[in-house]
């Protein structure tokens, strides 16, 4: 009987753990960027955001996607997508499925790549993509700074 009680308690704790999430991995202000509109898409609704592209995220086990628009002090614009997967393997799979050609490794997350006007990184079960609409060395560095701010919020997230 006692064993059953512990089992139930552990199951409840596990369920609660699964439901835990990083409160909001996308900072309101960071490295000169200010957040604008934020949207959240559950897995079943992800197609509304990326249409056919949703399929590969679903296959990798996406749970939900958060996306936010950012504007920098000098008027540059960017979009940040945080894809929360069911397991770290999903984030790894997405990260590694994208061509690395033309990128350079960056010290963000557990693995990260900068393509200049965009970057990707993974941290635990999160796969993150940042895309800017301008292309310059300054933008590339500003994106990396924003990525580090996002990564800091994901560090320690369940």
């Amino acid at each position, binding site marked *: 009987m006692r064993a059953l009680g512990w089992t139930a308690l552990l199951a409840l704790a596990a369920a609660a753990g699964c439901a835990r999430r990083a409160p909001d991995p996308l900072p309101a202000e960071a490295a000169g960027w200010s957040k604008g509109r934020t949207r959240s898409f559950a897995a079943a609704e992800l197609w*509304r955001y990326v*249409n*056919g*592209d949703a*399929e590969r995220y679903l296959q990798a086990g996406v749970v939900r996607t958060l996306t936010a628009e950012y504007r920098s002090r000098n008027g540059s614009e960017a979009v940040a997508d945080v894809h929360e997967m069911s397991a770290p393997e999903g984030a790894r799979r997405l990260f590694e499925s994208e*061509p690395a*050609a033309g990128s350079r490794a960056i010290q963000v997350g557990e693995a990260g790549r900068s393509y200049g006007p965009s970057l990707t990184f993974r941290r635990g079960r999160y796969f993150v993509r940042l895309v800017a*609409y301008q*292309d310059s060395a300054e933008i590339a560095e500003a994106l990396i700074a924003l990525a580090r701010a996002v990564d800091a919020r994901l560090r320690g997230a369940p």
Partner: protein
Amino acid sequence: MSRTEASRRRFLGGCLAGLTGNACGQGRAPAGQAKQDPAAGRSRVVIARDPALRAGGGPDSARLGKLLDRLMQAFYGVDNALEAWRRLVRPGEVIGLKVNCLAGKGASTHPELVEAIMERLQQAGVRSRDILVWDRLSEDLESAGYRIATGRDRARVMGNDLLGYEDELSAYGSAASLLAKALTQICDGVINLPVLKDHGIVGVTLALKNLFGAVHNPNKYHPNTGDPYVADVYMLPPIRQKVRLAICDAVSGQYEGGPSYMPQWSWPFNGLLAARDPVALDWTGWQILEQERARRGLKPLRDAGREPKWIATAARHGLGTNDPGRIERLEA
């Protein structure tokens, strides 16, 4: 404020005005009806390019307008652009501009192009309030830089979420969908404004696939690299009957990573493509993307497991031709 910005603001600010719903010209004989009979002759695809098209990050509005004029004159074989537009539309008609805004800024139909088209439609006699810029979702339009306008006295900019869908399914082959009222009830004619880009599942997304934005369930149509779904959706009668011309926004092209915007896999094509035949346009656009993939050392789409076989299926349906010998490719 730059001239481009001022001009865009005038346009976006002017995008008010009223949907008159079902009363807007249903049943009128449209001008410029696309002939979908490839046996009648070769399908013309015009490509116009301007190496100096860009100003900063986006297209220069003035140069884009001139490029559009050159494109239309070449397509219709006329001496002035206004004559070309008069062959496409008539005063009193409600004209829809089906943009592609899924990817937000960067890989969507540029507002500058839509602004230029709207100006020319009005010069050809179409009233501002009879122009509807539409796509699947209003938030997609906003993400791409458009401002939603639902008023009743000027051009409208709205998504299907606001305009609604029919209650009855339309079906052809593998496709069974609720069609957008923008297409079925509001517009007499539609100008299709896709973007030149790759698609991670169906290979490419151009003229045919842009009409996925006219159905309520596009997410159901991506298995088997979109074949035959893309072709079957375009077979739905209101689509075949009302889309008169495709003008592909190829200011930038994206050869990998679509349909989302991936700047690292985009390149400045600095052009526009026009065709009545959506199959010919898609085949031509596909070849352009393949050439760029080859130049960058990427595998052909066939080897990447996403050859757009639905283009051939669309040709078999009679929607147009994918036979290069029957495509008249003109560089304007």
